[in-house]
């Protein structure tokens, strides 16, 4: 069998997930954190589609992955609006300075 197995895709998904988590944890730029979230969602999507291909689950994985893509786009729009507001108020997007949510 010359195809690639399920494990290889799962490992790619795991690498994407871990990169996203590390990106979210270490970046101090708010937009860097957003990019980490996108990486995590893509890792989950790779897993969904791999399972829908290599198991008899059929199209359910692909439908779920499509929902994830749409939700990620919505999340990016709202988070960027919040980042813009934050920048307007603080003149920086360093997330470490965002500890004054009152007022």
């Amino acid at each position, binding site marked *: *069998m*010359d*195809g*690639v*197995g*399920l*494990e*290889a*895709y799962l490992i*790619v998904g*795991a*690498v*994407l997930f*871990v*990169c996203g*988590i*590390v990106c979210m*944890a*270490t*970046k*101090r*730029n708010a*937009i*860097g954190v*957003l*990019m980490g979230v*996108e990486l995590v969602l*893509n890792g989950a*999507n790779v897993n969904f*589609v*791999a399972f*829908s*291909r*290599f*198991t*008899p689950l*059929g*199209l359910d994985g*692909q*439908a779920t*992955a*499509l*929902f994830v*893509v*749409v*939700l*990620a*786009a*919505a999340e990016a729009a*709202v988070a*960027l*609006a919040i*980042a*813009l*507001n934050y*920048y*307007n108020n603080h*003149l*920086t997007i*360093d997330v470490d300075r965002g500890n004054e949510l009152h007022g």
Partner: protein
Amino acid sequence: MTEQLLFWVFAILTCGGALAVVVTQNVVRMAFWLVVSLGSVAALFFLLHADFLGAAQLLIYVGGTVVLLVFGVMLTASGHTIKVQTTPAETLLGCGVGLLLLCVLVFGINSVEWSDVASRIPKAGDSAAVTDHAEDVRLESAVTSAKSDESRDKAKNAQEAVLARRQSGRTLRQLGLSFFGLRPDRNLNQEAGKPLAPGYLLPFEIISIHLLVVLVGAAYLARAKRRVTPGLEADL
């Protein structure tokens, strides 16, 4: 063979792009590496026979979300904010924890016998367009077990069936129907007594409303605020 080569190329591009996003400190370069990584994920979707999902990934992620992120970078970048560095100790700690998490995940993936798990899942209905790995395996075993001369024809037929099955990735119609609540990939050719498989009509409606609300909310949050000076209130 080609599939394997393509998989390795795009898997390395995906993982390398993701690593570069983590390592790079400049936000604009991070956005570029994110495009590389997400585009390669779309190619992996095509390799997994998810043609519509790959196209949607290219359109929505690479064409939409990343452009949105780049606009965010442009609107918030002003000299000192384009590079906000982390200290080396924090980076080291983050990478250590990330490596440990990766080890846990990889050992977890390798310790499960996935073909066993797949064989325990009840099979969906018959449809040529649903790519079905178990059927692939059955046909493969038919190919390899047919050694004698008289069954060579059968082996050839099975080989062609494998190829046809591999090349079938038309998921657009099934996905569209499942968003209307119909599941032709599961409900065709099933016995009369069994309950119908559920579709995705309700989640589809919910996500439509969600997207509308989110876009209105984002436009409201990001609107340009007019500064109101006390003397000019009468004019406004």
